[in-house]
């Protein structure tokens, strides 16, 4: 959520973004936009856990990558259709998230992060050792096929709109989670576990459920990735991928709704279109990190939220309308 809930501005914004998404493939290279969706969805998944439940996972690449391999394998080797393949990938990724989550939620804070990290390293090791991932050679030439029997994904525009559709559905699912009683309970727990307990919630159960939901969305992103790019490799399960998603979320705004997608846009753009800068890209990325952490901890969307709130509050004060002064600061 980039702006206060249910305000008209929010609706306008989402409508504008939707329109932008519809027009984008006619202006920009569709693969580039799809990459933003895939990693944006991945970052949304991460943000669900970090921004709303306060749990920092350093191993989300494991779910993303496992799902990518699973979907890729199902499509390429078993000859399944992409829809079934995605379903299979999501199931496997979610299952893995269940296992990892069951261990990780036993501990909090930095220990939680380290356990997820360790388990992700184990997954990476297994992926490297297993013949069906192709090891360093990767899983190549996964061909897209027909989605739901009607959509021929080998046509770029069809692929784009299927990807866009899945992204929107997943994002709506995320919004639904956040606004459900479960989502509210999560935020209550994030603010104070003791208080949540006294309200009758069970933090371990809440955490576990959040972990699984987040893992599921990450897995969906991974499955989508392999369908879009027709390629899965060890870098999907590498810890750098887990680090990448943290960067995107931070850039866009931790705890905002659409923020991580903006983060994905910035990072993807840096990677794809500024790569001619060669080694300077890493230095630039490093500086962005530093500037973000020192100066813009709320991220792009978080900062916009605050700015917007200030404006509104100013206007509301002038008009003397107490209702609209209720400011909700996302990202804090």
């Amino acid at each position: 959520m980039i702006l206060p809930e249910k305000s008209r501005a929010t609706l306008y914004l989402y409508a504008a973004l939707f329109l932008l998404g519809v027009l984008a493939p006619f202006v920009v290279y569709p693969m580039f936009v799809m990459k933003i969706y895939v990693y944006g969805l991945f970052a949304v998944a991460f943000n669900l856990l970090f921004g709303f439940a306060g749990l920092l996972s350093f191993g989300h690449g494991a779910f993303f990558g496992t799902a990518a391999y699973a979907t890729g394998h199902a499509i390429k080797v078993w000859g399944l259709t992409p829809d079934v393949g995605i379903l299979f990938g999501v199931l496997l990724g979610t299952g893995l998230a269940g296992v990892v989550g069951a261990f990780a939620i036993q501990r909090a804070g930095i220990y939680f992060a380290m356990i997820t990290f360790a388990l992700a390293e184990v997954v990476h090791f297994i992926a490297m050792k297993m013949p069906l991932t192709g090891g360093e050679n990767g899983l190549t030439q996964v061909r897209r096929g027909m989605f739901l029997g009607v959509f021929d994904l080998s046509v770029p525009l069809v692929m784009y709109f299927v990807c866009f559709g899945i992204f929107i559905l997943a994002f709506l699912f995320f919004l639904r989670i956040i606004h459900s009683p479960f989502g509210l309970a999560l935020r209550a727990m994030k603010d104070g576990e003791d208080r949540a307990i006294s309200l009758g919630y069970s933090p371990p159960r809440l955490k576990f459920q959040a972990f699984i939901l987040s893992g599921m969305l990450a897995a969906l992103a991974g499955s989508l990735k392999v369908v879009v790019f027709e390629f899965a490799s060890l870098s999907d399960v590498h810890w750098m991928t887990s680090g990448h998603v943290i960067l995107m979320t931070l850039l866009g705004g931790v705890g905002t709704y659409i923020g991580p997608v903006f983060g994905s846009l910035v990072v993807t753009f840096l990677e794809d279109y500024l790569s001619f800068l060669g080694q300077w890209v890493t230095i630039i990325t490093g500086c962005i990190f530093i500037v973000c952490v020192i100066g813009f901890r709320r991220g792009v969307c978080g900062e916009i939220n605050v700015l917007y709130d200030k404006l509104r509050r100013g206007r509301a004060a002038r008009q003397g309308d107490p209702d609209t002064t209720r400011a909700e600061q996302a990202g804090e």
Partner: protein
Amino acid sequence: MKKLKTLLMASAAIGLAGTAQADIKIGLAGDMSGKQSALAGPGSQVAVEMAIEDMGGEVLGEPITLVIGDNQHKAELEASIARRWYEDEDVDAIVGINLSSGAIETVHLAERFDKVAMVSDAGSSRLVQEDCTPNHVHWGWNTYSFSAVVPKAMVEKGNDKFFFLTVDYTFGHDMMADATTNIEAAGGSVVGSVLHPLGANDFSAYILQAQASGASVVPVINSGADTVATIKQAGEFGVLDAGTPVIVPMIFTLADVEALGLEATKNLRAPSSFYWGRDDESRAWSEKFKERFGKMPTFFQAQAYSATYHYLKAVEKAGTKDAKTVIKTLKSMEIDDFFAKNAYVREDGQLVHDMYLVRVKTPEESEGEFDFFEVEATISGDDAYQPMDPEACKLLQD
């Protein structure tokens, strides 16, 4: 919002700029900033630029442009760069490509979009076997040809028991299998192997195991920092001075010698597809390269030049940039430059050319900053490269 818009517009502008021109467009994809950027990386860019200049900057009356893509040593990025170039930016040929996963995906993308891939970095022998396509050529070394160079020379000297020290990666396993074939063909035997994780710190444990195996030769199958660490520590443990077992780094470039110093590497032997000081011709080109880059070229960088140059030559000769025609022309035309000697492109897409066994000079022998190797033996390409495999390569089947 404004930010997003500007970004989108900027990217669109870049995208459109790519499609608007009808010139010959070459993309150099490689590791410009990651772990292996010292092997090819920015140096390959200079090499490719030189190749374009040597063609006068144009072919068939069209200007040649060059775009650079950095994969940061991630397969993920390599594949998406290749796809974007072929699909959206009208790149005619991609040169370089250092990760085998990325290379395998790239050549299939080349076939799909009917463009050209000139793989000059990655060394997977799969590229001319199950992954051969009518749209690419594998320009330079592969795991088989490199592992063919060493065994014969070793067995002739009576060193016939081999123990591998191998990185636990597909590249390592592939090369180990190829080397085993070559060792057995040369009359040697393999007594064992030890696998190490990529990017390990300390190799002393593996060196001790190799020593304890009783082998007479230890081929070291890894690259970059791993190789440097292995050699450095083999020296520390006195294995290099003792001379038994003989340590043979299988991927060894000027950059590695630079990182280790001549004192620590003297008299090591390694396979190579090129050495700048091989003869006057290679020397002349390399001096020019050094003037611009500050260093002498590694074999990867020479391969990048040669691949680009011959691609452009083939376009000129074919009179078209149609991908399949160009590749066909490459397979029929004469290949000769400072890099590729006695060379031709085989039906399966492999550039076959002379391979070399090089020896690292001692500090006393070395006469200059990059005077590192001496070419000890030349192995003809037909002996070094694996025979064509009609069962695996679909090009050989009709």
